[in-house]
């Protein structure tokens, strides 16, 4: 009996300590998260009565607001495409420079200095419709990023261009352990936990659409999730599924994005087949291409390690800007007539995997 009581008391004490342990708000998130009921972080970007931009922003220039910090002051320098402090290259590249060289193509967000002027952000998301041209609109940093944070370290939005890029009914991308706050009564209503745990245990999923199940030790691919689906919310044609018109592939995982008609049918004014994404790649590319979010499988999944090499848009393209150059055959190739945010000069990204000289 005494032993039972002793164990019970120890367990109760541990439980009580865990229960009352004060939860602190992270100081590392700046204005992008860690909001509590007495937060003052809203005032970093918003004004209730004196705002001059949309969404009560303190400026009508979102880019200008973002680069106040993200141009060398804090860790992520999106202008120079590097991590401040050790100059590691940013996964997204930079708007002005990448690897110490001028950018040759960028996502021209509104407010970005261009030559003597400033970008309006107006443009076309290529690959968005059957004819090749796509969604028109004004691109801003907040078109892709949620400044209020997400589980993704890139703080990417849970929807883009009005389209959730995963299944909103079942797997809405919500912040892990996000607090639902009752501002009127100053209470925490609930804690939401994302069942897929994008943040820690399965980081590859939100980027590649590959879902590792530690129970079965099987990695499955969900093509409507992940980074490429995110890009396809504006570059919409890339969401076309296997089996659509003109697609010769029956491989469910071979996510192949044709236009409305096949190039071989003579209708040359329509979009062509798209390069596969979400394809597992098990080889070793010549040049360092990025595959999955982490590039490595969890320590407890040695069997499926190669499957984490999920091929996706960001395997070949930067999101912000690139320093690659295009010449020869690669120059003037539609749809963008430029380096198309690619990693390497010309079509070095192709050769990285398709090593025809070996």
């Amino acid at each position: 009996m005494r032993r039972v009581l002793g164990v019970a008391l120890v367990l109760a004490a541990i439980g009580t300590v865990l229960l009352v342990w004060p939860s602190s708000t992270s100081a590392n998130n700046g204005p992008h998260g860690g909001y509590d009921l007495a937060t003052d972080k809203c005032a970093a970007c918003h004004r209730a009565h004196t705002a001059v931009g949309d969404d009560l922003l303190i400026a009508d220039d979102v880019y200008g607001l973002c680069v106040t910090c993200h141009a060398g002051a804090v860790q992520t320098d999106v202008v120079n495409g590097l991590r401040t402090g050790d100059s590691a290259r940013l996964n997204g590249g930079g708007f002005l420079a990448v690897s110490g060289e001028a950018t040759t193509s960028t996502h021209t967000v509104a407010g970005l200095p261009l030559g003597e002027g400033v970008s309006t952000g107006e443009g076309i998301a290529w690959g968005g419709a059957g004819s090749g041209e796509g969604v028109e609109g004004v691109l801003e940093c907040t078109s892709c990023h949620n400044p209020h944070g997400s589980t993704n370290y890139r703080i990417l939005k849970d929807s883009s261009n009005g389209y959730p890029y995963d299944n909103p009914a079942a797997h809405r991308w919500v912040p892990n352990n996000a607090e639902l706050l009752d501002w009127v009564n100053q209470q925490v209503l609930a804690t939401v936990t994302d069942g897929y745990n994008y943040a820690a245990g399965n980081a590859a999923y939100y980027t590649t659409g590959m879902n590792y199940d530690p129970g079965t030790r099987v990695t499955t691919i969900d093509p409507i999730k992940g980074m490429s689906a995110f890009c396809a919310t504006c570059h919409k044609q890339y969401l076309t599924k296997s089996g659509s018109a003109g697609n010769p592939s029956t491989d469910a995982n071979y996510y192949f994005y044709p236009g409305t008609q096949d190039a071989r049918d003579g209708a040359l004014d329509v979009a062509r087949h798209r390069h596969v994404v979400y394809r597992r790649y098990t080889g070793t590319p010549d040049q360092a291409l990025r595959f999955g979010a982490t590039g490595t499988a969890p320590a407890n999944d040695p069997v499926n390690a190669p499957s984490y090499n999920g091929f996706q848009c960001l395997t070949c393209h930067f999101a912000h800007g690139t320093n690659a150059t295009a010449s020869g055959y690669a120059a003037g190739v539609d749809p963008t007539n430029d380096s198309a945010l690619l990693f390497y000069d010309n079509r070095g990204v192709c050769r990285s995997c398709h090593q025809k000289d070996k």
Partner: protein
Amino acid sequence: MLGERVAEQRTARLTRTRDLMVVMAILLLLFLGGLALFLLLYRLNTAVPRVRVPLPQAPFVSENRPAFEGVLEGVRRPLSVAVSPDGQRIYVAEGWGERAVRILDASGRELGTIAPPATDVFDRQPTAVAVTPDGTVFVVERILRRVLKYDGNGKFLGELMPPVDEDWAPLGIGVDASGKLYVAEALDLPDRARHRILVFESTGQLVSVFGSKEDDPAGLSFPHDVAVDAQGRVYVATIDAVKVFDENGQFLFALGGGGEVMPGIPWGVAVHDDRLYVVDLTNHRLLGYDISGERPTSSFAIGGYGTELGALRFPQGIAVSATGKLFIADRDNDRIAVWAH
């Protein structure tokens, strides 16, 4: 016999049941106690705002407001500005274009540029510039992670070395009246972080180091500019407030929180006589304080968002000449705004 055994078993069962109930009761009591304590702590934690040292909400005194004089143009995305002791040279660190430090005369005519040797535009990014009382120019190069030293004409003289042979990440710099250099370092990597101020003699000898990124009123989160007043108080601009320390690096108070008289995200700071100037970047204005007393009192605000003369768009740096002329790096208007008392 059978009856006794049954009775014993029943007694033993009852004893076990009673023990179990006692354990459950203890667990329940501890849980409820813990829950009550948790709710109490949570209530206390959320009901009390974070510590801020309030300033008197005095209205702005209009006679203290400087007058707008004009703008110096021809610079791209100016991030920082400094002025020579005689007021005849203005040094502007550019965030776009050539990304060098432009040397302008008082009328805005370009006299030259300062750039690190053997670099091109994409290797460098000057984020801060300061001039010592003897006219020596110090430039913080954020990408190179160096603090470089030039004469007033831009001739390269050397560099300020970090305290030990380690990588450092200088972001801002300030100078006091004696020529001491205050380097603001902001390094925030997954494996190491340093948010601090390093004080050097004008000869380059390290004098002291203070500050860290602790989540308390004294914490320095990405310190990016420094100014020192006649009393030796050190004003450090951080992401969330201007943190003020005494000459020994002991925290005194903070200026922050937004509103009418407090900066939202303070950037440039400068001191002249009994005045402290704080660039309130996210409110697109310059705030002035009287610092003749123990605590600053609000004095004026100028600027406001816009492109017209007198307005500001994301101002960052500030410098004050010996005669009290103000030079504000009006970043997104691509110009230096000049005001004077």
